């Protein structure tokens, strides 16, 4: 091996063992382009080499699942001949470098995954993590990310209806930007990313190919001097207008039945889309890079194959329909080029003006990628953090002040600053707009609705990844249930540090185990997802953050429920029970800067019972408002119900817990309901049947939130006006971002 060759594969990120394996698979040395193709396909991002075996733990099937993991997006049956298609994906690293374009192209990528399945995208969500908003750079990142999402999603005309934003120093240098897209499709029109039918043509459509995003850190070679590095922007710029045209054109192609297979060009561009399509179909593809429309002159085969230019799709049209495909694309002012054909030899054969530049088995790039079983070990911080004695935390003297402080904590504060920049009403389906537990969309032409949410508490996962992972699933499901939806299925985005570190891999494995168990018990299989590793700054990892995106179905949208208190005189009921669980809470973090203690525990059977009880009660029409308890516990949830409804409440409870425990404990499996007092009896019966604690804790009314507790003596813990609470809660983020 010459030094120069070693340089190439090493700089492309392959290990010696991997390079040897390539030689073995090919029975010869790979050439330069082939090495590049292996390097991107065997990268963590494309091959899932460190996560594959762990991901097998997820339950992925169920009576409604039409398509589980392995395609561009998951597909779930929602009846009446319709299916819902969804997936979540990360764009963390690009967003850390260029927040606006990074986030924008993240939206573009996930939307393409959904319409590649033939589905019309009907909703977007985004799950975001940033550091401390007092930091200039963090502010810049958040501003850029939000406006990038707004720019791209709004232009496409897909409502951005939900998501979450969580703040912690661990995300300071490495924000998390996860975008989720939900689409609707006729069940019998699901498209697949397959290059089937030997002899069929292969077309690339949409944007021209430029030197965007060719792995910046790859290498210099004879063909690529310093000058070309210059010409090679690592940051991709998104063109949402082009994407909108592409979306409409692709859906029209599917509608007209012109397509055998379709796949977006995402990470690793033409290389990954072509070999994945061939590999899924058990075929090969021969393509000539000289036929690919270019944006720039003098591009090499390597550059064309690895370019990550956005807004492109790869199509295999039905034989003889090439002209019709061209016509549809022309209607939308888009280019389409035949670049090759499907072959029966299972090989990826890349030509440049007829000359063979690369020839490798498609499956060598995909199925034969290495699989690693990383070492795992519980990190030393865990036992120390879990041993933290929460009793050592002083009880705040002024609980009103504590509540106001929590309301102003960015993780809890209103996210209106974010979502008022998103068009969440386009398509006229958004029945419950951002701000409630889950967004609800109507399905036009039916009486049904969809509820969507994303959730994850990275702090819990840091302290106890198994429980944290399970809670992420449980909380997402609880959010859907509170809106009146039956949870259907999950898409997940697993954001972790470097998996080659045993401590990180332990976090990863434990989190997936916890999520899997929760998915099993709650009957919400995983149908799609994404893994993002190496989220670290100077060796410091982000909190383990397995984001759960979940979709639920409302059989009768008229029975939907929201979190806001509706009417004075209604009784306030707590489902579930409050325990001494303040470890890992927002209370400890926001008031004392403490990230320690045992996070709340999760009894999945209890969780399931609480959810079933709540959902039945909603469907029976007993409930006027429902809100799940999460960050900040009971007091925060009550404040949110009151502020949202513009009406106060008086709460009066007997409890054996310390005041701050009672108010701010984050015990799981709890929901606050409000209902007409006449409905309480049937609710109590339901709860008894489900063996769920169900207790009247107060009455809706007035313009204040008053919380009284009776333990040894009767005392008023909280007495605040709605206005005071609302000002803090609404004003916090705008003030920090100003």
């Amino acid at each position, binding site marked *: 091996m010459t030094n120069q060759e070693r340089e190439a594969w090493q700089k492309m990120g392959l290990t010696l063992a991997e390079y040897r394996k390539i030689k073995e698979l090919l029975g010869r040395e790979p050439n330069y382009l082939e090495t590049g193709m292996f390097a991107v396909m065997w990268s963590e991002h494309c091959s899932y080499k460190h996560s594959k075996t762990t991901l097998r733990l997820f339950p992925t099937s169920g009576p409604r699942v039409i398509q589980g993991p392995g395609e561009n997006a998951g597909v779930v049956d929602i009846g009446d001949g319709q299916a819902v298609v969804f997936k979540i994906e990360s764009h963390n690293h690009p967003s850390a470098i260029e927040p606006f374009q990074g986030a924008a192209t993240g939206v573009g990528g996930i939307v393409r995954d959904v319409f590649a399945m033939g589905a019309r995208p009907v909703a977007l969500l985004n799950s975001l993590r940033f550091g401390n908003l007092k930091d200039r750079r963090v502010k810049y990142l958040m501003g850029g990310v939000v*406006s990038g999402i*707004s*720019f791209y999603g*709004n*232009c*496409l*005309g897909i409502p951005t209806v939900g998501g979450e934003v969580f703040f912690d120093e661990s995300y300071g240098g490495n924000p998390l930007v996860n975008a989720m897209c939900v689409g609707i499709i006729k069940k019998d029109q699901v498209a697949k990313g397959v290059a089937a039918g030997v002899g069929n043509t292969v077309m690339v459509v949409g944007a021209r190919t430029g030197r965007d995003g060719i792995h910046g850190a790859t290498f210099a070679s004879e063909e690529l001097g310093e000058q070309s590095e210059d010409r090679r922007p690592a940051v991709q710029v998104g*063109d*949402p*207008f*082009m994407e*909108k*045209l592409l979306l409409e054109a692709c859906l029209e192609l599917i509608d007209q039945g012109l397509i055998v297979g379709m796949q977006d060009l995402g990470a690793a561009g033409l290389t990954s889309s072509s070999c994945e399509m061939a590999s899924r179909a058990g075929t090969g593809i021969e393509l000539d890079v000289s036929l690919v429309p270019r944006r720039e002159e003098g591009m090499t085969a390597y550059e064309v194959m690895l370019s990550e230019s956005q807004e492109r799709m790869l199509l295999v049209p039905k034989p003889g329909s090439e002209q019709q495909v061209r016509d549809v694309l022309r209607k*939308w*002012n888009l280019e389409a080029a035949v670049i090759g054909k499907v072959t029966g030899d299972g090989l990826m054969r890349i030509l440049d003006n007829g000359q063979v530049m690369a020839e490798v088995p498609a499956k060598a790039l995909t199925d034969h990628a290495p699989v690693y079983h990383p070492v795992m070990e519980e990190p030393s911080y865990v036992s120390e953090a879990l041993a933290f004695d929460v009793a050592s935390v002083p009880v705040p003297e002024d609980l009103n002040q504590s509540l106001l402080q929590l309301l102003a904590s960015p993780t809890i504060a209103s996210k209106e600053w974010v*979502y*008022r*920049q*998103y*068009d*969440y*009403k*386009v*398509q*006229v389906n*958004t*029945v419950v*707009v951002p701000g409630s537990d889950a967004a609800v969309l*109507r399905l*036009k032409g039916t009486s049904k609705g969809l509820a969507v949410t994303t959730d994850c508490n990275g702090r819990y996962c840091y302290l106890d990844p198994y429980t944290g992972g399970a809670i992420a699933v449980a909380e997402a499901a609880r959010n859907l249930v509170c809106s009146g939806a039956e949870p259907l299925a999950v898409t997940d985005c697993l954001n972790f540090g470097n998996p080659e570190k045993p401590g990180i891999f332990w976090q990863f494995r434990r989190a997936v185990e916890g999520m899997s168990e929760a998915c099993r018990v709650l009957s919400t299989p995983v149908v799609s997802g994404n893994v993002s590793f190496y989220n670290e700054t100077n060796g410091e990892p982000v909190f383990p953050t397995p984001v759960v995106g979940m979709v639920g179905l409302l059989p009768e*949208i008229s029975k939907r429920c929201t979190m806001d208190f509706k009417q004075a005189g209604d009784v306030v009921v707590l489902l579930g029970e409050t325990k001494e669980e303040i470890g890992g809470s927002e209370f400890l973090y926001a008031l004392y800067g403490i990230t320690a203690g045992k996070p709340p525990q999760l009894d999945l059977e209890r969780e399931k019972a609480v959810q079933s009880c709540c959902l039945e009660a909603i469907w029976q029409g007993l409930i006027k408002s429902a809100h799940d308890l999460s960050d900040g516990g009971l007091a925060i949830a009550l404040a949110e119900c009151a502020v949202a409804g513009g009406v106060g409440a008086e709460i009066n409870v007997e409890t054996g817990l310390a005041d701050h425990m009672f108010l701010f404990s984050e015990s799981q499996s709890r929901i606050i309901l409000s209902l007409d007092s006449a409905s309480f009896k049937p609710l109590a019966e339901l709860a008894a049947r489900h063996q769920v604690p169900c207790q009247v804790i107060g009455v809706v009314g007035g313009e204040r939130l008053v919380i009284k507790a009776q333990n040894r003596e009767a005392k008023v813990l909280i007495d605040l006006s709605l206005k005071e609470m609302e000002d803090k809660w609404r004003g916090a983020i705008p003030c920090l971002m100003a």
Partner: protein
Amino acid sequence: MKFGVVVFPGSNCDADVKHVIGEVMGQPVDFIWHQSTSLQGYDCIVLPGGFSYGDYLRTGAIARFSPVMQAVEGFAKRGGLVLGICNGFQILLEAGLLPGAMQPNHVLQFRCMETYLKVENNQTPFTNACAPGQVIKVPIAHGAGNYYADPATLAALEDGQQIVFRYCDRDGEVTPAANPNGSLGNIAGIINREGNVLGMMPHPERCAEEILGGIDGRLIFSSILKAWSGCGGCACGKSCGCREERSVKS
């Protein structure tokens, strides 16, 4: 009454408008592709919201050169009713069918929110179902709704009662705090002098059904129907309150 909803590349409220006119108002309605050159047979043309041509350069700047816009101009000249919503309003400005120009919101951010509008002129074919000074709740969603016109143009708009909607608070007070985008004089919608071309930034099609939280937007569509039926198939006409001297549809 037959409606046409123009589809430009990048329009994204076209289907919403069609849904409301067809399903909610129960009227015949077609999409009209931006390449069309004839609007024969239509009684009202809607330019919907969205990001025509990506709104690159300036909002509406490229769309106004679409072949259909010549037809829209002719249609308007003959007295046909033209309603531009959001991006449609921006296109009408760029095309010179309405005076003034749109700039980015003064907050320099997109704004999606509910707004209250004061109906300043209910004597138009688009507002005749509203009471004088009525306050209606209609959502906005735009990044460039900051209306500008030079002082002379503005004075002429005021004089001609061409300012149809202004942003106001819940009680109908037109205040700076109620202005979501920096628009001159809180202007949310204007009409041409002839009274048959209306541009508005808020989206009436997004609040025409109870399930979406409000039905004030229906007033705009029912006004159009009233205007049309009130004068026997002619879009001008005395009964709808628009100007008498207006040229009659040929």
